[in-house]
């Protein structure tokens, strides 16, 4: 997307930036940006699961193992399910470990879903694990995961 041309920064802007930079250097370790952690991801998953446990299996993530550009990473999540009235996937939740927020997407499906498969494109700020949790109509949860190596990060890259 084309960015508007940057005007020449005035002295005032320069001073303001310098001050902001100095303040930032005190407040943060160099290079430390808002990031989720594997712990934050576990907490976000816990909120979805409540008291239940997620069984490994049934959920497949189709995502490239090596990504050059984290700005648009194709992701397909499929869940083994007959998608019938008695046995269907109610929801799929996707989480990540190292973006600024652990939540990626939640989708709600139903017995009319036909097939439990959803595709989108996501941003990844770093090499990390992506986890998907599926909620089945019988109340059980199933999980799958995939590891992705990212060479160009997304989400927090600055425009300067």
């Amino acid at each position, binding site marked *: 997307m084309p960015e508007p041309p940057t005007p020449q920064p005035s002295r005032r802007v320069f001073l303001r930036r310098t001050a902001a930079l100095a303040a930032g250097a005190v407040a943060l370790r160099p290079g430390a940006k808002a990031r989720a952690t594997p712990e934050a991801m576990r907490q976000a998953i816990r909120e979805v699961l409540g008291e239940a446990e997620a069984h490994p299996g049934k959920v497949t993530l189709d995502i490239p193992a090596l990504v050059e550009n984290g700005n648009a990473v194709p992701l397909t999540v499929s869940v083994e399910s007959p998608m019938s009235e008695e046995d269907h996937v109610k929801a799929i939740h996707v989480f990540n470990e190292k973006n600024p927020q652990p939540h990626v997407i939640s989708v709600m499906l139903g017995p009319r879903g*036909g097939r439990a498969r959803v595709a*989108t494109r996501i941003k990844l700020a770093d090499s990390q694990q992506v986890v998907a949790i599926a909620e089945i109509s019988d109340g059980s949860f199933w999980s799958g995961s995939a590891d992705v190596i990212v060479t160009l990060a997304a989400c927090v890259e600055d425009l*300067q």
Partner: protein
Amino acid sequence: MVSVPAKARRGAAIEIKTLISHPMETGYRVGPNGAMIPRDIIRLFTCTYNGEEVFRAELSPAIAANPFLSFFTTALESGTLMFRWTGDGGFEATHTAEIAVE
């Protein structure tokens, strides 16, 4: 932009693909003036089939710009699929598609 098969057999699982132009600004980036760029994302996408919701997605900033979503639904009867995107700053967009089920 939405892709829905124009015709389907009754009971068949049909794939629907949607794409919408939107920056999906994360709210975690610094702009040219040194200030944070405010978050501007689509938060919710829904698809209704003759008025009944058949798919819903809640999006976080981790969804790439120009959100793409593909999913399935069962073709039960001829009618209208309505797609709706809503988000930050009062963003709202809708699209409808007709399907003939035989």
